[in-house]
């Protein structure tokens, strides 16, 4: 129901923000999640090779209600993510220009009491891949010295023409991600 609306997890923000990349016609979306306990920071970045935005547009996407219906692809998503970062002594930066794609980066204080949990990153990746099998997704997850990476371009080589959204393939990807992220040193949420 409407009253239960809530973007509770950082992985849900990632799914939402990747929609902007899809709407911008990206063929490659690179998602980085980098936690560093020493500097107590969590960096999340989403970089795409989509249409990009003008400087004017970049300046206004932070304000949810300045966007018109025709430019609907940016609404509440970025402002909510920026707010989530600011609440955790962090901030959001947006780098984009027409034809050059967009890079959105948010930094959070890792140990901040208000930092939302990462949540179910596997479901986020599966939702993206299932509904957008022609877009390549690179997910890089680092915590201290450990790393997990999923690159759909590598999967495509093995799949040799079979689409990423075949049931059997999606199931394998979900297990591969769950497996990879089960490494305790990669955990971001306590």
């Amino acid at each position: 129901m409407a009253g239960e609306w809530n973007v509770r997890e950082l992985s849900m923000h990632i799914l939402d923000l990747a929609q902007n990349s899809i709407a911008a016609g990206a063929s490659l979306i690179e998602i980085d999640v980098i936690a560093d306990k020493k500097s107590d920071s969590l960096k999340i970045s989403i970089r795409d090779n989509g249409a990009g935005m003008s400087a004017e547009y970049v300046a206004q996407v932070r304000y949810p209600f300045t966007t018109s219906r025709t430019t609907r692809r940016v609404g509440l998503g970025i402002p909510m993510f920026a707010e989530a970062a600011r609440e955790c002594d962090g901030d959001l930066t947006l780098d984009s220009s027409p034809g050059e794609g967009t890079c959105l980066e948010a930094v959070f204080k890792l140990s901040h009491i208000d930092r939302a949990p990462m949540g179910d990153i596997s479901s986020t990746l599966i939702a993206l891949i299932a509904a957008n099998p022609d877009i390549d997704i690179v997910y890089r997850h680092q915590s201290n010295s450990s790393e997990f990476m999923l690159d759909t371009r590598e999967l495509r080589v093995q799949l040799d023409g079979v689409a990423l959204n075949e049931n059997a393939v999606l199931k394998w990807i979900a297990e591969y991600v769950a497996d990879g992220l089960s490494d305790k040193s990669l955990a971001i949420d306590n």
Partner: protein
Amino acid sequence: MKTLEDLKKVREKALEQMKIREGKFSARVVVAMGTCGIAAGAREVMSAILDELDKRGVTDISVTQSGCKGLCEQEPTVDVIKDDQVVTYGYVDSDKARQIVGQHLVNGSIVDEWVVTATN
């Protein structure tokens, strides 16, 4: 530990499934993935649909997404497009999503009580 090499076997399985459906999908399911949909639980709905299709061994239904379509209040919404008819379900959750797969997609009967709009 899974390796990329395993994908070769997965590929064989996928090819069998593709052969059975002969390039034809019997229906299409569209989950709305606007900020409104995602905030209301669209990701869990998508997961439930994919899982239910997999459990039932259904491989001839395509699952895709749309953006916000102005039904924000009734999100998560799911469109089922079958035999040229578009049925939009509202306030979908994981359980309802599984029932929509079973009743509508597999058995062919619309779940009337959750329908928001439907074309003839």
